[in-house]
């Protein structure tokens, strides 16, 4: 009988130590920053949550009445943008991954990525200067011919600066990330399944329907939700394009439009004082919660298909 050998102890190397400490530091910085922001939002918001119009001049009745239309506008604009951007980005992604010749595909991929590099204020300028005037005739046509659909009813805005225009600008802005994710997922479709479909006599489109889209479904969902998250928080483009009112309406073409939380903060903050500041910060807290919920949902979907972790 011999006594058990002493367990071998790993030698502590300076390099390992430095690396592990700095990694822990970097990781905890994220938590600290997030906690600081959340703390700031919550502390500053508390006085506003119970405020009434006597306390803050920006309110008409109380805080919740104030934030309601803003939440609606935020979600409505983002949902419209998503509705426009999703089919287009799936189309672009399919074209890049399955239709375009290889050289054209890589050029297109770069162009789409380049779109992501355009600052949002530029998109805002483009929205006011180019898009809004350009869409007025289209809106007039929609209103005259499809006015019986509630969405297109009402008096058409003469400037074109409506929620639909804002949604179009937002759609262009979320397009790059959504296209990039969809493209990555579509490219990962196993060749085996594509060939199975082709060998059964599938055309290119049928092959995509049978093999590529079912495989990419969860990727498409996570692309949508990340796009939605981005659209929810976008400030400048909406603030510049939209001629905003404080309403809840589904009309797309009129000059009375709901605004979004982020745009409202940007536009109202410079003139805010006293408790009005807290009210605006509290709306920021609401936006934080909404966006956080959307992103958490996206993470949850992505985590169900781990191989797509490159998508975020």
């Amino acid at each position, binding site marked *: 009988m011999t006594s058990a050998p002493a367990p071998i102890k790993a030698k502590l190397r300076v390099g390992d130590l430095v690396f592990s400490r700095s990694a822990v530091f970097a990781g905890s910085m994220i938590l600290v920053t997030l906690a600081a922001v959340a703390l700031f939002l919550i502390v500053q918001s508390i006085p506003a949550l119970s405020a009434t119009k006597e306390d803050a001049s920006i309110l008409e009745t109380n805080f919740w009445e104030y934030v309601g239309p803003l939440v609606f506008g935020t979600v409505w604009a983002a949902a419209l943008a998503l509705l426009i951007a999703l089919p287009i980005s799936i189309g672009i992604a399919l074209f890049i991954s399955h239709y375009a010749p*290889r050289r054209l595909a890589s050029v297109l991929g770069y162009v789409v990525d380049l779109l992501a590099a355009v600052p949002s204020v530029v998109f805002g300028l483009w929205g006011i200067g180019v898009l809004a005037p350009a869409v007025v005739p289209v809106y007039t046509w929609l209103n005259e011919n499809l006015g019986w659909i509630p969405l297109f009813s009402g008096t058409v805005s003469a400037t074109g600066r409506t929620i639909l225009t804002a949604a179009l600008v937002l759609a262009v802005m979320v397009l790059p990330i959504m296209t990039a994710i969809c493209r990555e997922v579509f490219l990962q479709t*196993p060749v*085996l*399944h594509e*060939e*199975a*479909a*082709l*060998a*059964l*006599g*599938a*055309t290119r489109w*049928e092959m995509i329907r*049978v*093999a590529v889209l*079912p*495989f990419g*479904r969860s990727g498409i969902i996570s692309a949508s939700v990340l796009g939605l998250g981005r659209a929810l928080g976008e400030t400048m483009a909406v603030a510049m394009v939209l001629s905003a009112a404080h309403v809840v309406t589904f009309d797309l073409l009129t000059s009375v439009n709901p605004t979004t939380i982020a745009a409202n903060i940007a536009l109202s903050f410079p003139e805010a004082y006293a408790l009005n500041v807290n009210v605006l910060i509290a709306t920021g807290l609401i936006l934080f919660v909404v966006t956080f919920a959307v992103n958490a949902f996206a993470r949850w979907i992505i985590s169900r298909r781990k191989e797509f972790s490159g998508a975020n």
Partner: protein
Amino acid sequence: MSKRIEVRDLNVYYSKFLAVEGVTLEIEPRSVTAFIGPSGCGKSTFLRTLNRMHEVIPGARVEGEVLIDGNNLYDPAVDPVLVRRQVGMVFQRPNPFPTMSIKENVLAGVKLNNKRISKSDADELVERSLQGANLWNEVKDRLDRPGSGLSGGQQQRLCIARAIAVSPEVILMDEPCSALDPISTLAIEDLIEELKQQYTIVIVTHNMQQASRVSDKTAFFNIAGTGRPGKLIEYADTTTIFSNPSVQATEDYVSGRFG
């Protein structure tokens, strides 16, 4: 419904690289033909030219003619999609569609071909195809379960059921048993024996015992060296190839004295 295949002077290219050179052979209807040869000799590549799956790879093309009952597959007027509906294919690794149930997998090809099919016809076709693939008894109680939940051998038979559901003339099999255990392999070999009553079957295999067990005729492909094109060395009755081949290289290969 099975058809004769004639290949005349076929050269197969990947872009500029000549992968298979000068193949001429005839395959009889209702027979099993095996392609054997060392890795990289172009037998799979050649097989894929018989239903125009070869050209799915960018830059791939062929020269020469492949005639099925006298019609050239590579005629410019021929739609490759229609060719593939006539010439089915089973791949090396079982590839049922993962998001579809067993039943949907069997019907995938029929639904693609844009045929409207009544529920009773569909049920009957599913049963007939799965029975044709010797899988019915194993899966009849779970037709709505995902096809990817089956064992490898069952998945491969599901793929065969999917291929025969569209009533092809010819079935191509690209090493269908190389990912399977011996018992599943035996099941597939028995199935091939039955399928040949109705279909023309061409099978690529690395397993020479398998070739000698299942095939009527055997084609031996070889390659002179890396970067050189693969060639058809000898094509004859399976018994001849394995007992009395006329070319020395064939004898070396089938007797295991190769390389």
